[in-house]
């Protein structure tokens, strides 16, 4: 497919990206450990907290991220087939899904703030211990994840420009490959956030 030198270079770039993604996995792993430890200490408060989150927003955002993972994977496939229009359209859809996800997240956080559920709010300070821990971890975890969605969306918009300018092509797809890997990791992390925070019974 490629010459041997290009092939090794692409593989090295992917390995570098994977190592970065593994460090991200350990970063979010720390937050999941905190969640598990406090769930074990305050099971009732965590279940009560989970019930106050909106299942519709959680499930809707899950479907959005899964679909955006598909469109970015298809965009890479389209690029490899030199179908640049299709690739651009798919990248645009992925960015659209990222924006939609953030709008949902914003509406969801706004509703929580309206109900006086945010770190340090009067309701949470008066609630039994554990309730504020749940919401503290919720804001920290979904906030850090949301930051990753913003970064991923910006990177994909940059990639879209590069594809338009012809600087990413079917024979030099590395930047799109690595950006897609980052976007999939954002999806993988949400796959764990969703059942743990939204589906506790």
């Amino acid at each position, binding site marked *: 497919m490629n010459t041997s030198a290009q092939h090794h270079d692409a*593989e090295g770039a*992917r*390995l570098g990206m*994977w*190592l970065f993604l*593994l460090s991200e*996995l*350990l970063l979010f*792993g*720390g937050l*999941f*450990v905190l969640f*598990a*430890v406090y*769930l*074990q*200490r305050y099971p009732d408060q965590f279940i009560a907290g989970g019930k106050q989150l909106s*299942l519709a927003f959680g*499930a809707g955002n*899950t*479907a959005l991220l*899964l*679909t955006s*993972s*598909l469109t970015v*994977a*298809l965009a890479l*496939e389209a690029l*490899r*087939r030199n179908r640049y229009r299709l690739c651009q359209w798919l990248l645009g859809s992925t960015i659209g899904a990222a924006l939609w996800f953030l709008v949902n997240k914003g509406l969801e956080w706004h509703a929580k703030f309206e109900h006086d559920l945010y770190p340090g709010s009067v309701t949470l300070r008066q609630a039994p211990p554990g309730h504020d821990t749940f919401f503290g971890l919720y804001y920290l975890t979904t906030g850090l994840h949301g930051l990753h969605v913003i970064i991923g969306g910006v990177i994909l918009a940059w990639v879209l420009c590069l594809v338009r300018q012809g600087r990413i092509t079917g024979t030099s797809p590395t930047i799109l490959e690595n950006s*897609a*890997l980052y976007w*999939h*990791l954002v*999806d*993988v992390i949400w*796959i*764990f956030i*969703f*059942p*743990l925070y939204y*589906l*506790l*019974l």
Partner: protein
Amino acid sequence: MPDDTRHTGAMRQLIATWGLLLCLTAATVGISRIDLGAGNIWAALGIATGKAALVIFFFMHLKEEGRVIKISLLVALATLATFIGLTFFDVLYR
């Protein structure tokens, strides 16, 4: 064009993976509405792990990667598992 067929197959496989991921999402929501006691959290984690594996193997093309990346992922997951295990060893027997 054999190359083109391979690519069409690849796109079909990605779409099938997405369909399976949506079905598993519906399944995890459905199971969470049934009271299984401690079984709920394990079912949720099991389905999430399955979904993550689908994303990693098919969307992230891990199945086509060389040994170095696969071993790195295993080492990272083993580190995370050790980290979680030791934390619980501390928390539960404190």
